[in-house]
């Protein structure tokens, strides 16, 4: 039977983590932890419930960055007017996670710390160049989301560290972003493939920066680093979108499961990368998230 500890401040929580007791598990909303416990995958001896930890529930929109407190519930993020206006694609994509009951409990910090490969926010955050702030009694560090996630349900979090904040650089006014969530079965299914695109292009269509992150197909969001270079600064026309898609199709090594085989996911990745870029750059529908 797990013992329950309920710190009320971040430092209390960090001290509890620092005492090194084995079998300690942090719980935020509890949706993932409860699933794992009920499945017999987790037998914590000590639960550190973060619900009452103060000051980690916020959306702060600053000139250069948007800061999300780790204990902000997904439901509050999807409904946040400041977030929707600063980062509309992210706000919408967060609203695609699981269902409203889960989002009423789950937090953005818990979502990232769980590192579920088939969750929607990681790919979008990766494409936005987001970072996470990790704190412990030893100090704190900031890590890009792409480095934070390192495997299936695996992160670089040390046992004494707590993810306290997500920091997302604010895109410039030219930037357009898109998220496509593709489910291959019923509308309630987890994604087969998710594609987040970020395009920074000038008025002539010349691309400055292009990022594409593919979620749900690999352990962590899959990105090719040199998309803009691949385009040689040229315009992102239909042919270029297809070419990027093909590059992703060649490079990705997706999982296979009941939602689609590895080959299928590879093919769909290529096509949806192209579509996400077209949607972002060409359709005038930029800055949105769409369910397919």
């Amino acid at each position, binding site marked *: 039977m797990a013992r329950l500890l309920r710190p009320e401040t971040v430092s209390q929580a960090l001290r509890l983590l620092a005492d090194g007791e084995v079998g300690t598990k942090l719980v935020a909303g509890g949706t993932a932890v409860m699933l794992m416990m009920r499945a017999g995958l987790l037998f914590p001896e000590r639960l550190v419930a973060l619900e009452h930890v103060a000051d980690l529930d916020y959306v702060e929109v600053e000139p250069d960055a948007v800061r999300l407190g780790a204990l902000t519930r997904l439901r509050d993020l999807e409904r946040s007017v400041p977030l929707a206006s600063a980062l509309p694609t992210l706000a919408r994509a967060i609203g695609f996670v699981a269902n409203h009951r889960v989002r009423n409990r789950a937090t953005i910090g818990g979502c990232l710390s769980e590192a579920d490969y088939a969750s929607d926010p990681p790919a979008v955050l990766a494409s936005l160049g987001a970072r996470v702030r990790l704190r412990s009694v030893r100090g704190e560090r900031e890590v890009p989301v792409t480095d934070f996630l390192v495997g299936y349900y695996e992160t670089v979090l040390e046992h004494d560290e707590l993810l306290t904040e997500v920091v997302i650089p604010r895109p410039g006014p030219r930037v357009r972003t898109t998220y496509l969530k593709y489910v*291959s*079965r019923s*509308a309630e299914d987890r994604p087969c493939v998710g594609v987040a695109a970020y395009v920074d292009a000038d008025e002539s269509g010349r691309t400055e920066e292009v990022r594409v992150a593919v979620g749900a197909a690999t352990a962590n969001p899959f990105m090719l680093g040199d998309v803009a270079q691949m385009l040689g600064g040229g315009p992102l026309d239909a042919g270029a979108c297809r070419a990027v898609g093909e590059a992703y199709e060649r490079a990705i090594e997706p999982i296979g499961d009941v939602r*689609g085989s590895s080959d*299928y996911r590879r093919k769909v990745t290529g*096509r949806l990368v192209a579509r996400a870029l077209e949607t972002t750059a060409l359709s005038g529908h930029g800055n949105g998230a769409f369910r397919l």
Partner: protein
Amino acid sequence: MSGTLDDSGAADSRAGDSRAAVPVAVGAAVGQSIDVLQARSRVDGTVEFALNAEVPGMTHARLLRSPYAHARIVSMDVSAAERLPGVVSVLTAADFDRPGAPHRYHGPVVRDQPVVCGRRVRFAGDPVAAVAAESEEIATAALDRIEVVYEELPRVTTVEEAMADGAPLVHDRPPEVRDHGYADVRLAGVGGNVCTKFQLRKGDVDAALAGSDVVVDRTYHTPAVQHVTMEPHVVLATYDRRACALSVLSSTQGPFAVRDALCEMFRLPSSSVRVVVPPLGGGYGAKTYAKFEPVAAALSWKAGRPVKLVLPRDEDFLSLTKHAATIRMRTGATFEGRLVARDVQIFFNGGAYADISPRLIKNGGYSCVGPYDIPHVRIDSYALYTNLPPAGAYRGYGVSQAAWAYEQQMDELADVLGIDPVELRRRNLLVKGEAYATGEIMDEAHWEALLDKAAAAVDWSPDSRRGTGPSGRLRGKGVAVILKSTVTPSTTHAAVRLDADGTMQVFSSAVEMGQGAHTVLAQLAADAAGIPVANVHVTAPDTQYTPYDQTTSSSRTTRAMGGAVTKAARVVRDRVRRLASELLEADPDDLVVSGGTVFVAGVPSRNLSVAEVCYRTRTGSISGDGDVVTSGGLDPETGQGVASDHWHEGAASAEVEIDPATGKVYVTNLYVAAYAGRVVNPKLARLQMHGSALFGMSHALYEELVFDNGVLTNPNLSEYSIVSMGDMPRHLEVELLEEPGEAGIHGLGETGLPPVIAALGNAVASATGARVRQLPMTPERVLQAMEARGATEERDALRGLEER
């Protein structure tokens, strides 16, 4: 006042004719969308599901299940589990060797399923031990303390593997048939892994195929899927050692099937086994015969305490499946589009135990003809044992597998012939008075009307079958028509009791599982007795008190139980008329009972209330009973005879859009129609159709149990996908074809399901020009079919077709 006038003479004269429906008495209730009985409990959380049941001294059970699909049990040690504090009893096969122990095997047709396995396990999930403990947590903990050593055996999981030469045998010995099995089931073709075979022979198929202008030869596949009732299987069993009596509360669709199974197993008379059935949180066939009642009862017998078993969801997935099937079908036709011959081999994957496969594969077999007039037919239908969870009854009962094949084949044939698919069907549909392939005459035939309605619902025209949407999505339309039998022969009894205050009890063993059975029975009883429906109460099945009924299945309850209740209520009404005749100084035949009042026909002012009649004649209560018994059966060599007391007729049409990049199918328009004869409660009837439509859509697009080395890999609602609100078609329309006059009631529980799957298949093929012959039509399979077609487009478009 609407009259209940009066059909009693007709009813009596037709009572001996088993194929005639009992004419419906139509008064104030029948045909009305009244609210369901006990509606309040449905929306305030207080329905007494079996899940809520508790009795003093109750223990909680869990089952230990085999991790292997096929293995020998080398040894088993339960001592550590027995020592765990809070564990009351651990049941293993060894307990059944004790003197006076119950039988260890059960099964509705063939006694081949062990309550707990002894020397061998036959599917991954086969129970090897059962634990009763003071709490579910303790029972669960005890499972980990049971040590079982297995030695894996070679397995067969597909019908192809099961049929192969030298295949490992799932059962070594021929199955033991139950003494009182089912009159219509005669095991044939048994041997190897063949559990049973059904065959139908009509005409000279080989000659007719040879003489056909075109022959289409294709093989179709459907996967195993699960019922996913929202409420799992729940059993609360109490074995009373002193009285040698067994009492069981169960979420079953077949109270008497369960009672009879337990009577045989414990060698007890019917009077000593009581089965009570509360409302079910969904059935769909999953709960049709004895399932977990035997193990819960045996555990209670050993423990000497009541035992409650609630299956966790992952185990519910292993309880029963819809048969996976492989259907090879050849159909010959003339250039003019007349069907000439059909040759079918249909293989049903029955899993490890027979369950009701022997009967189901018969229905699935003869149904392969479809609602068509085909002169020459040969059908071989097999139930195969494999090392998978047992397959059995499932909404549609073998027909959705058959219809998936024959309605796809009709479109394929239409394409070869260059005839519009709707037109091709029209040229071959059975009409009233024609014989089905079994030789029985179709007394009713409404397929043409249903087909026309289905086609109209999607604005069908030969050149509008396919198109492209504004966003590049491929659009297509499809239609399908089907026939479905009902279980024949069958037996249903009912009783009613009118009390002196004018209220009535209906004693019926029909199970209320959401279909509204009790509500429509109350409506029928009210009008037949001539009292307000508000005065009717319908009892829950209790084998100690309510009369025998075969099962609540096969879309039969409204017609069969409704007929029995109608007859029983008429007996009561006639008695009321006789009692009232002296008081009202009129001949009983001149009296009308309606709305709880007896009056002289044509002189409504000369009346008495039913309660007044009872009071003045010192009548305490009036009882009546009624029955509906149907007969039939097919010759085991030829499949000729009477397959079904009456036939269900259905049609569907669909419009889909397909994303060419992903292959995903979006259903934009879905229409389902069924012949209903007479609708008792329109809003409940329509919901049955909605349910069938959505089940069909879910099977067509999403559902599939995936096995890896015989182990189910997706036994939960995250990995197993069912249709949700977000998948609803933009337009969903259902229609019930009624007939004025004395039309009999036709059940609606299943009719809409098979045509929906097939119509969606045809719509996908229209949209893409490529046919997916394997369900579900996942985006991946659609894309593969499109690519395969693209690769071979320039080659022979009739590949796989023989043309003469």
